């Protein structure tokens, strides 16, 4: 083994020149991210969208600076310390193993940066989470493959666009009728999943009129790609009110379709149709409409389940009698449409079943 002499190499003038260039480039990148007109490419429709952009600017600026230094030194060292044709074949590099001072600083500075980044992120996170709740409450429900919206004082569901008045705080409750979807409005810089069986909430205050796409961001089935065709419309209060009124009228009918409770034959002993109606709204309406059999949500419409001559048999091929409906509620059933949960899963007592059957029986 030949003993090699390590050639001496301090920090040459070249190193400091390169450092100066990289510093200049980093400053340029920081300036770039500070003034880049993000909103020209993606408008900010709610207050906190600007905060998220600010966080992005901060991270993009510091990230670019870091990357410029790493890549810059990488390139510079590769060129400056390349082996040359004139070097003896067994020439070796500078034999340094470490440098505790350097290692100390490049641990401490990133650690301090992490503290700073945490403070910035937590502050902006607070602003996103702690938006006021004193405005309008809306529910968005994910379906395969669309979103529907429920507003207080509008019966039933709004199924095309979601309208919101400008400058009024919104509490948006999200849930799903089937699988997980993602409810994303890029212009809001905000999303949340719609999870079946779970209600999650996002809060925000619209500040900019416009028509913004609502996009599903969780794979939800074969037509997932099509779930980008609905819009959030933010508009002045009067325009919103007009829209609201239109849907109230349009859906007034939807509510009238729910027949008033009471009366009708009591199929199972002690069944109470009005208690059944309340239960239905609570436990069944995510999957069933009170509408003819053909109007399916997840399961079929149930308006005529016991009294529709064109629907003599239930989905399990048994005759449509109160007893057999009770059987389906008790045991559940999986058929061509999907799964009807059983009584345990739906949380139904015997009395609940009796009440529900009474309610279904009251629908003509």
């Amino acid at each position, binding site marked *: 083994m030949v003993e090699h002499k390590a050639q001496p190499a301090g920090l040459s003038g070249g190193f400091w020149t390169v450092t100066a260039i990289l510093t200049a480039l980093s400053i340029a990148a920081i300036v770039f991210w500070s003034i880049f007109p993000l909103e020209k490419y993606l408008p900010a429709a709610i207050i906190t969208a600007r905060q998220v952009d600010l966080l992005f600017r901060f991270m993009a600026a510091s990230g670019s600076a*870091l990357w410029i230094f790493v890549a810059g030194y990488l390139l510079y060292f590769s060129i400056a310390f390349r082996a040359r044709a004139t070097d003896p074949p067994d*020439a070796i590099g500078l034999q340094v193993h470490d440098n505790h001072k*350097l290692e100390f600083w490049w641990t401490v500075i*990133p650690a301090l940066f992490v503290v700073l980044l945490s403070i910035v992120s937590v502050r902006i996170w607070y602003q996103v989470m702690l938006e006021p709740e004193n405005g309008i409450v809306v529910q968005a429900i994910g379906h395969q493959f669309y979103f529907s919206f429920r507003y207080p004082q509008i019966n039933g569901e709004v199924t095309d666009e979601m309208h919101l008045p400008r400058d009024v705080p919104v509490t948006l409750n999200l849930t799903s009728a089937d*699988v997980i979807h*993602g409810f994303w409005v890029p212009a809001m810089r905000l999303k949340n999943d719609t999870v079946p069986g779970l209600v999650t909430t996002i809060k925000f205050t619209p500040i900019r009129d416009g028509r913004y796409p609502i996009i599903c*961001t969780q794979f939800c089935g074969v037509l997932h790609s099509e779930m980008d065709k609905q819009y959030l419309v933010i508009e002045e209060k009067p325009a919103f009110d007009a829209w609201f009124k239109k849907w109230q009228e349009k859906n007034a009918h939807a509510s009238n379709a729910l027949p008033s409770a009471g009366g009708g034959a009591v199929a199972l002993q002690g069944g109470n149709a009005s208690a059944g109606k309340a239960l239905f709204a609570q436990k069944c309406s995510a999957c069933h409409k009170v509408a003819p059999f053909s109007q399916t949500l997840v399961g079929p419409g149930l308006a005529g389940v016991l009294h529709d001559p064109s629907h003599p048999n239930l989905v399990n091929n048994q005759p449509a009698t109160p007893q057999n409906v009770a059987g389906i509620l008790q045991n559940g059933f999986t058929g061509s449409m999907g799964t009807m949960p059983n009584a345990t899963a739906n949380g139904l007592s015997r009395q609940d079943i009796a009440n529900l059957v009474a309610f279904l029986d009251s629908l003509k």
Partner: protein
Amino acid sequence: MSVAAVHPGGIADHIHPEPQGFVRRYVFSLDHKIIGIQYIITAFVFFMLSGLLAEVIRTQLLNPNGGFVSSDTYNEVYSVHGSAMVWLVIIPLLTGGFGNLVFPLQIGARDVAFPWLNMLSFWIFPVSGLMLFASFLMGAPTAGWMEYPPVSLQGAAGTSMWCAAIFLVGVSSTMTGINFVVTILKMRAPGMTFTRMPLFCWGQFATAPLLMIATTALAAALAALFIEREFGVPFYDPTKGGSPVMWQHMFWFYSHPAVYIMILPAFGIISEVLPTFSRKPIFGYKLIAFSSMAIALAGFMVWAHHMFTSGLAPFLQLPFMILTFVIGVPTGIKIFSWTATLFGGKIHFSTAMLFALGFIGLFTLGGITGIFLAAIPFDLHVHGTYFIVAHLHYVLVGGSLMGVFAGMYYWFPKMSGRLLNETLGKWHFWLFFLGFNGTFIPMHWLGMLGMPREVATYDPQFAFWNRFESVASYLMAFSILLFFVNVLWSIRNGKRSGPNPWGGRTLEWQIPSPPHYYNFKHIPTVYGLPYDFAQPLPYKGLDEELTDSPPAVAAGAH
């Protein structure tokens, strides 16, 4: 009869007779080197298949309304592409492949601790891979590599096949993990203390416990999904009392550590290639080794950063955000140490070195966007979009896969006794580098501007950049074709490499290429770190390795 001797390390030092016959030598081999090569070949076959699927994806996305394949087929294609790249390509290449091939040599062992287990681990792998691809015959899974229920409960029959395949490949990983941990703990040559171990071994040592521990969570989740799909026991279906979010917890409790399974060994490869080709000790050896262990440990505590939109209680999310930021620090330390390693070096631009340098630049970018994603308010914007696709490909392709290529150019001579062609290799590198960046850089802004992931059709406003990406991806595919041509050509016609073509100082370079089946005639004794180029090699007992003398311990029947 085996003739056993006990060397100073206290390990029975016996040599098994070289197996005779093709089947015992190359098919059901117990030799860690052959098994490593088997892993590498198999994984590259799967790499070709899932690479083809990737090009189907990009071809579909040439047009906003798709049209190359149906939506359903498209969903199957990207789901199998992602699953196969993770479980059949990157993980097997980096652990079963390079792990098996290299680290027993580097610690001066004759084999891994449990050769039979090793053979079993390997043979499960192609079987599960075939099962995964066979799922196309019965309707492949469509819900991506994450297969979130409830939608995965609705998936075609192939989804159950997917569960079984991934479960099996997980069993194989777990066994590999056990094997590697025991081997490193018990079978290091005398004098090979932990602080003298090459950094590639440290990479494997940090990875193996992740394979062992994290994979069990995945196995449980998969078993439950399989049982629910096939027998209706409701683990995940909320209408029957199950919890879909539970899957996400279990999946990410595995899959976040799994991203470190996919990067720590690549860190190890880079840490070997850099000193060899800059003729310098690695800078900050201890800090690099220590930070791998820190990353592996902390990797278990950040999984919910994938679930900021899943409806977790808001205050539960904060610690996950901050811990994820914290992981950036040891990662940064490594990047700085590698860069500093170049300072004052005598840098030789072999293809392996080019890939290592490319790795540092691209992985750093992916790590930085990872930090972006950990910041909850920003993640609430880009989760589930192409920004994620950009991040994960920067770390997995710019990082892990570049590491694999660096390893291939570096250790191919050790496997075959021949060099890969360097000219073709450089074409491979540069075209790959261009094609890769062209394919994945635009995804950052596409995601931020509103393009969701896992879609077969998209808003026409994104058409330009998608076409750009698709064309760049063809360039990347072409460069990989060059790599395959290079391997196939060089295996017969490559320049003979001799034992140590790169002037490497770790133990594997001190023995013939390819090594004898027993690796070392005498188990060497180790006196120091391998990376001191100014010092003589820190090994004793290697004098006869390159001579014709027979091994010290006679071979005998076991």
